[in-house]
């Protein structure tokens, strides 16, 4: 329970023990302690270095032109990509979240324990979660773009992404539902509510923060995804005129495409800034929601 207290005590114990046998014991323990410290330092250092590098290289290149509404060959504006990203995030969530929540509700509230279907669903979601994005991309390309004739389109990309984020939405929702105290359900049943009403009026509302944090994480994945979208949504640099059935690139694809065309590295860095700021905000939100959950638990 109280690791920090424990640690202090151990430290004292160690010191008492170590001092007499200075040579042998200290060197080994000392080395190990520094080894783990250095490793942690490397990990954090890499992250800080990466973010600092992108920001330092990118921020000087942020200007009004970079956020103009039109993409022209001379001006690699990121604005169309931002709009496309928002459209794709919206479309994907509209598809993935209801299915994910519905599925989690079935798994937690309806299915009996040891149900074969539940086991099967669990295996398949685990498998889906482990499949790399490029395989999803290939599948989306074969199924939606070629077979269903959607060509390169935002909707095709969103459908593929929905499949990709479905397992994580399902899992977090499931965990959130399991975390809801059984007494809530019993109380609701006791007051004469049916199963459905209990689920929607009692269980789901108290699981909202958990579900939300799953959704936020899914948004993060959608925003950062590249491989899937190259195959399915295409790399067109404008907001499609034909709406969701047209091709368009998201911010991450924009960044890749700038690298691919190899001509405007300044814009590439600036796009990196936009992307990394979005990811930091999304992560911060997820942390905030997560903290809210643990606070709520304390008061219970």
């Amino acid at each position, binding site marked *: 329970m109280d690791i920090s207290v424990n640690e202090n005590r151990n430290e004292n114990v160690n010191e008492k023990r170590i001092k007499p046998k200075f040579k042998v014991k200290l060197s080994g323990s000392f080395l190990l302690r520094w080894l783990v410290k250095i490793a942690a330092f490397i990990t954090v250092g890499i992250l*800080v270095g990466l973010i600092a590098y992108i920001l330092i290289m990118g921020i000087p290149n942020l200007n009004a032109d970079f956020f103009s509404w039109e993409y022209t060959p001379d001006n690699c504006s990121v604005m169309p990509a931002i709009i496309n990203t928002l459209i794709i995030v919206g479309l994907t969530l509209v598809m993935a979240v209801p299915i994910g929540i519905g599925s989690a509700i079935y798994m937690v509230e309806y299915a009996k324990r040891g149900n074969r279907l539940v086991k099967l*669903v669990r295996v398949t979601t685990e498998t889906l979660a482990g499949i790399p994005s490029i395989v999803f991309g290939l599948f989306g390309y074969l199924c939606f773009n070629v077979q269903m004739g959607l060509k390169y389109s935002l909707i095709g990309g969103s459908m593929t992404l929905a499949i990709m984020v479905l397992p994580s939405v399902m899992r977090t929702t499931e965990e959130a539902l399991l975390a809801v105290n059984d007494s809530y359900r019993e109380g609701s049943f006791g007051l004469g509510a049916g199963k459905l009403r209990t689920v929607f009026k009692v269980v789901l509302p108290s699981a909202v923060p958990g579900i939300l944090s799953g959704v936020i994480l899914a948004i993060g994945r959608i925003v950062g995804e590249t491989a899937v979208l190259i195959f399915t949504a295409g790399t067109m640099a404008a907001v499609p005129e034909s709406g969701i059935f047209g091709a368009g690139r998201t911010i991450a694809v924009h960044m*890749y495409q700038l690298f691919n065309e190899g001509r405007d590295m300044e814009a590439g860095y600036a796009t990196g800034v936009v992307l990394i700021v979005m990811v930091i905000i999304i992560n911060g939100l997820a942390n905030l929601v997560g903290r809210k959950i643990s606070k709520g638990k304390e008061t219970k």
Partner: protein
Amino acid sequence: MKEKLMKIVFLAAACVSIVIIVIMCLFLFGSGIPTIKEIGVFDFLFGKVWSPGNNIYGILPFIVGSIYVTIGAIIVGVPIGLLTAIYMAKFCNSKLYRIIKPAVNLMAGIPSIVYGFFGLWVIVPIMRDLFGGGGKSILTASILLGIMILPTIINTAETSIRAVPESYYEGSLALGATHERSVFVAVVPAAKSGILAGVILGIGRAIGETMALIMIAGNQTVMPTSIFNGVRTLTGNIVMEIGYATDLHRDALIATGVVLFVFILIINSLFSLVNKKESDTSKTKKLSLRKKHKAPESITGQAVERLGE
């Protein structure tokens, strides 16, 4: 009536993932296997030459490339990740933990394309200065990939180290071992199956990584002879060429995807095997999904709370 209807709706939602995976297998294997047959199983999997212009499709260089790069990533990522996890679970105070944990989570959230840019503009020039050549090599790719799998390894390792009962640690202390020795000799070995599961998960990540790798691995289609050679991975091969591929060439790329898919399925089943073993042992029961009244670690940051008390 409504109750029944909604139950069916929920059931249908639950079945969606099963349907998806079946359709996925049908599509991928359906278009991949005939292609592999057409090219010849042996020629495709073990052919050393990839030359779409001459209708020669051998993907052995890419398989070897993927494996090399993944091994390299494990060599780079696992020691750093594991030690960081040990530091987080057993050494650092709660203040530092509140900085490191979000940092690791943020690391997991950074898009691979950003890692790719970072690798291209920071790691590649360093490699070029140190070892000469173009700088895009197996070594470069291994380092970047090792960084990218850090969060996966750290998070799983930390969870499994925390799941080891405190009594192991206390027992070791009572026998006169130092804090460091207790952690490394008593606690970490007890968490080994969880750590192994994390490593397997990391392998899955590494082998499936695409966008960052094509920017820094060099993309040569020949067999690599040293770690300073450029290399193309299975994933890279698909992305590089599908834009302009037609006919058999395109089918061969899809078949490459199928090979990758099979790799991943094998790694996945290894993972669930190890994971199952892990959850069978009583010590991790408390972390399992089934336990009610207890929010899972991943979303609540239960560990933070525990430290904060």
